[in-house]
């Protein structure tokens, strides 16, 4: 049975046809742990690939050469890249389902336009000054209405700066990590994988960046 409804498929087909200017690569990692979620996401990606010739899907076991190359820690994992497979710091741990599916689609559209994020000049200028790497971990749930905004902002920042990695983590599926980070309210945004450095809630771009920079000091 198809995961995507027929009318959604039609919508996405038109959207990709209109918006995608270049190929977008979805690099997927699976594992025996979380097999159920891995199977689900694998099927989802197959269905997306059917909707546009510009969507390229690659699949690897988490414990593989590719997995280590991209430093994949959990499965299911999804990395978005351009044709060159270069890691741009945009990844999902756990299935991008529920409201988070829209984040994935928005990401695909952004990559389909040469991976250029739409950020303000002030934000881009501040990112240019970054001198050390930052890892943003955005914990989300599929039922959280405020999460897509936080997830997209994090991914956009990663695209604008090669110092930033932004991982969107489904808190229920990657439960070991979310428990370790004491996630109890989403979006929960942890900085540099430090459980003590986090903020909660969806913020406009300038405030998101400001909190991120303060916590990464």
């Amino acid at each position, binding site marked *: 049975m198809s995961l995507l409804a027929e009318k959604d498929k039609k919508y996405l087909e038109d959207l990709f046809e209109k918006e995608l200017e270049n190929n977008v690569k979805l690099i997927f990692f699976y594992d025996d742990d979380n097999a159920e979620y891995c199977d689900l996401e694998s099927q989802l990606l197959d269905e997306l690939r059917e909707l546009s010739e510009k969507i390229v899907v690659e699949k690897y076991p988490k414990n593989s050469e590719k997995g280590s190359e991209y430093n994949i820690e959990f499965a299911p994992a999804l990395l978005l890249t351009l044709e060159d497979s270069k890691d741009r710091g945009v990844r999902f741990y756990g299935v991008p389902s529920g409201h988070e599916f829209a984040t994935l689609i928005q990401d695909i559209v952004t990559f389909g336009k040469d991976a250029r994020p739409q950020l303000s*000049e002030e934000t881009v200028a501040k990112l240019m000054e970054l001198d050390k790497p930052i890892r943003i971990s955005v914990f989300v749930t599929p*039922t959280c209405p405020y999460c897509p905004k936080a997830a997209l902002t994090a991914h956009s920042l990663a695209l604008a700066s090669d110092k930033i990695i932004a991982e969107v983590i489904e808190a229920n599926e990657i439960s070991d990590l979310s428990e370790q980070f004491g996630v109890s309210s989403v979006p929960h945004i942890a900085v540099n994988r430090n459980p003590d450095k986090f903020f909660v809630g969806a913020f406009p771009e300038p405030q998101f960046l400001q909190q991120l920079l303060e916590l990464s000091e």
Partner: protein
Amino acid sequence: MGLFDIGSMSAEVKEYYDIVIIGAGPAGLTAAIYARRAGLTVLVIEKAIEGGAVTQTHIVENWPGEISIEGQILGQKFADHAKHFGAEIHYAFAQKVTAEREYKIVEFDNGSTVKCKVLIIATGTEPRKLGVPGESEFRGKGVTYCAACDGYLFKDKDVVVIGGGDSACDESHFLAKIVNSVTMIQNLPYLTAAKVLQERILNDPKIKVVTNHVVKEIRGNKKVEEIVITHNETNEETVIKTDGVFIYVGLLPKTEIVKDVVTMNDYGYIITDENMETNVPGIYAVGDIRIKSLRQIVTATADGAIAVEHAAKKYL
């Protein structure tokens, strides 16, 4: 919500619209439906997902025509309806509003802007804080305001819900399906929710109701571990062990972006005339954000219709 929801996909923003609406809740989406049917161009700006506060409501049972419907589904229906008639929705924070003589300008959080002749503010409300020690300290460490977002993170755990109104009862009922136990704390001697909701609560073996108590403090080490409540008359203190605190003690208007533009009352609700127009010509306010006696979906949608009907005749 479907397993894979494409609701919140952004429209590409044009330079100008006849009407720009901030907030894709019932009020804003109804305004969009009326505007499109009047042949006007319309953009709705939304910072979260389409549907507004309704999407966080467990079950709605007072929207005529639907005996009982999940808030999530009703919110989606409003949005689908608006999009069916060609309303565009853009996902961003509206950060700033400026009113020139004929045009209004809205700035997004990424710095870009959009221009319109008529601006409709439909930004709704946000949860009121309880204002007790520990509340902000444990935000994100067990204190939350959104059962829809965070409920599953408390699977099989013990939680308390603060409040005794419609929202508190509805969300307790939802949480009871997921968690081990719910203890409701209400400051009044009785619940204030609609009778049907109260009965549902009282019949649920997983929910315990403690009335006549106020919350004094939320305590814990790294995360919430207990709350301290005191009896209204005897002042006697009780400590309740808990993993999470869900707070539903009322709402505050979200008027930050227009506070220097339109006139509001002392509580921050926008003042309008009977056509929903504010003191600034061409700027309207609809739904929970304006002064009114009943904040519900039916009144929010009605506001949206009235505003557009008036604006279309007067300005467009």
